[in-house]
């Protein structure tokens, strides 16, 4: 025995230490909402976690140290290596994956608890939370894995709809509820292990089927929602295990995650039920005539370089495509070349630019773009009419003037960066293909718009080269 148990589970000292731990979580999250304190907040929450873990390790009844040490070492090593290796562009997938393992852990803990309790006296007040933890944990694990696979391009990011989707989901959910009730009736009478495993499987299917039909661009909201769900499942496990730290931390993540999810959805002008049940982006709704060729102007890197080099003010609008092409460093070089010539360069950041709200800020910060050059949408729009050239790199729907002008557009009302107000627009894009909304972008066909058809990274490098040669 490497350690002697000193703390009583549910005793005064262990409970007080847990209270200290979750107080630090709350302070940590609070500080995480402000740019100046976020880093410290994360550290404070991590200290809270260390206290919670050590307290638990010292509890009476903790045993099987070989398993514990092995789990800590393996998990710790994977966690460290993964967080060092991961690219900033891959952050959304990383969050999805961490989320999944959290949910998976809850489901496995619930299974363990179920085996442990079955056969003896099994009070409903721990039985019910176990079932809840199993269902939510399993949904979250599989849902997050699908989200990960979509973001990592392991499976197509477009919505994959199965016919009768909603019906299948409803049937699965009903089946889960029925099995839970059957198990609940027999809770003191050695409830069936097979039925419990069936719940895990049905919840796994449900998790897969709910996330599969959701398009890649909505994935951030889904990840955030799954994050909240995993928190709730942890709280349910806390009820089952009579552990106050799990209840509080899980619940706080559940409720704060819900708020965060709704804020994200609002920024994208989407509602959560809409994302989960509508499969928007699947069919090009209302854009039937969009396949016809419309006249547009195409230019090369050299023309773009001339337009940019002789401008006074340039606004770069980075988007999802920039993140995918990992073009942030090349774009920074291009901006540096322009600044050497006295051009004022700023970046307009749409709230949902990148693959996740705030993701573009991280990417540009990584590329050493000074913080003060990033301008939020509300602040840049009034400056647009005075901007000589707006360069749209890998962004699409967030610049579509239809959101403002066409009340029938599927994206009507979505806040956009008003690049069409600028004197001249250069759009760097691989083709005229529509964005995730599946609708044509009127911006591409304006007289003032020039299309530079190329990969974002290559285009930025070429333009930077041409600017130096001027």
């Amino acid at each position, binding site marked *: 025995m490497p350690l002697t148990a000193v703390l009583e589970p549910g005793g005064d000292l262990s409970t007080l230490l847990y209270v200290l731990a979750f107080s630090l979580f709350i302070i940590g999250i609070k500080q995480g909402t402000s740019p100046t304190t976020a880093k410290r907040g994360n550290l404070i929450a991590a200290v809270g976690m260390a206290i*919670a873990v050590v307290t638990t390790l010292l509890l009476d009844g903790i045993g099987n140290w070989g398993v514990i040490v092995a789990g800590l070492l393996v998990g*710790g090593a994977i966690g460290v290596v993964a967080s060092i290796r991961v690219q900033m562009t891959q952050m959304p997938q990383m969050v999805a994956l961490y989320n999944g393992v*959290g949910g998976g852990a809850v489901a496995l803990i619930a299974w363990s608890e179920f085996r442990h309790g079955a056969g003896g006296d099994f009070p409903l007040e721990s039985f019910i939370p176990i079932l809840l933890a199993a269902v939510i944990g399993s949904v979250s694990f599989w849902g997050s894995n699908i989200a990960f696979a979509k973001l990592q391009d392991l499976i197509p990011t477009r919505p994959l709809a199965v016919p009768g989707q909603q019906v299948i989901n409803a049937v699965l959910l009903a089946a889960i509820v029925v099995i839970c009730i059957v198990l609940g009736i027999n809770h003191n009478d050695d409830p069936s292990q097979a039925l419990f495993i069936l719940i895990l499987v049905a919840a796994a299917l449900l998790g897969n089927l709910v996330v599969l039909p959701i398009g890649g661009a909505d994935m951030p909201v889904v990840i955030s929602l799954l994050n909240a769900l995993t928190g709730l499942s942890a709280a349910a496990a806390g009820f089952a295990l009579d552990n106050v730290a799990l209840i509080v931390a899980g619940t706080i*993540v559940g409720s704060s995650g819900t708020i965060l999810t709704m804020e994200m959805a609002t920024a994208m002008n989407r509602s959560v039920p809409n994302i989960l049940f509508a499969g928007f982006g699947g069919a090009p709704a209302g854009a039937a005539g969009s396949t016809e060729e419309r006249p547009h102007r195409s230019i090369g890197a050299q023309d773009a370089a001339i337009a940019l080099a002789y401008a006074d003010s340039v606004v770069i609008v980075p988007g999802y495509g920039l993140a995918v092409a990992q073009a942030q460093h090349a774009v920074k070089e291009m901006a540096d070349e322009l600044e050497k010539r006295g051009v004022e360069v700023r970046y307009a950041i749409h709230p949902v630019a990148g693959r996740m709200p705030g993701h573009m*800020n991280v990417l540009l910060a990584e590329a050493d773009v000074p913080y003060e050059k990033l301008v939020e949408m509300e602040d840049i729009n009034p400056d647009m009419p005075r901007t000589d050239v707006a360069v749209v790199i890998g962004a699409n729907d967030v610049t579509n003037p239809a959101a403002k002008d066409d009340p029938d557009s599927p994206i009507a009302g979505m806040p956009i960066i008003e690049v069409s107000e600028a004197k001249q627009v250069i759009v760097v894009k691989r083709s005229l293909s529509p964005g995730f909304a599946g609708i044509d972008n009127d911006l591409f066909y304006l007289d003032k718009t020039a299309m530079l058809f190329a990969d974002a990274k290559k285009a930025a490098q070429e333009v930077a080269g041409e600017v130096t040669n001027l």
Partner: protein
Amino acid sequence: MDLVTEFTIFVLAAFVGFEVISKVPTTLHTPLMSQTNAIHGIVMLGGLIVAGFADGALELTLAFIAIAFGTINIVGGFLVTDRMLGMFSRKRPKPADDEQGS
């Protein structure tokens, strides 16, 4: 702890969670999601507890995976959040690279 006490704590914690997130600048959505993500790694404690009474190969395996998953969640989550936030603070205005809003 009886169920009603636990339920009381649950409800109060839910309100705390709602209150603590108010008007987050979009810049911080990604890091904050990642941080709360790390916090639900608290499930690792559950893994430690079930390891205590785990009996037989299946239960030991379940406990092992649960602990490993929970630890990945905690360690990876906090580290990656720190790395992400480091990208911001390293770029804050030049004099005194300490946190100090410009």
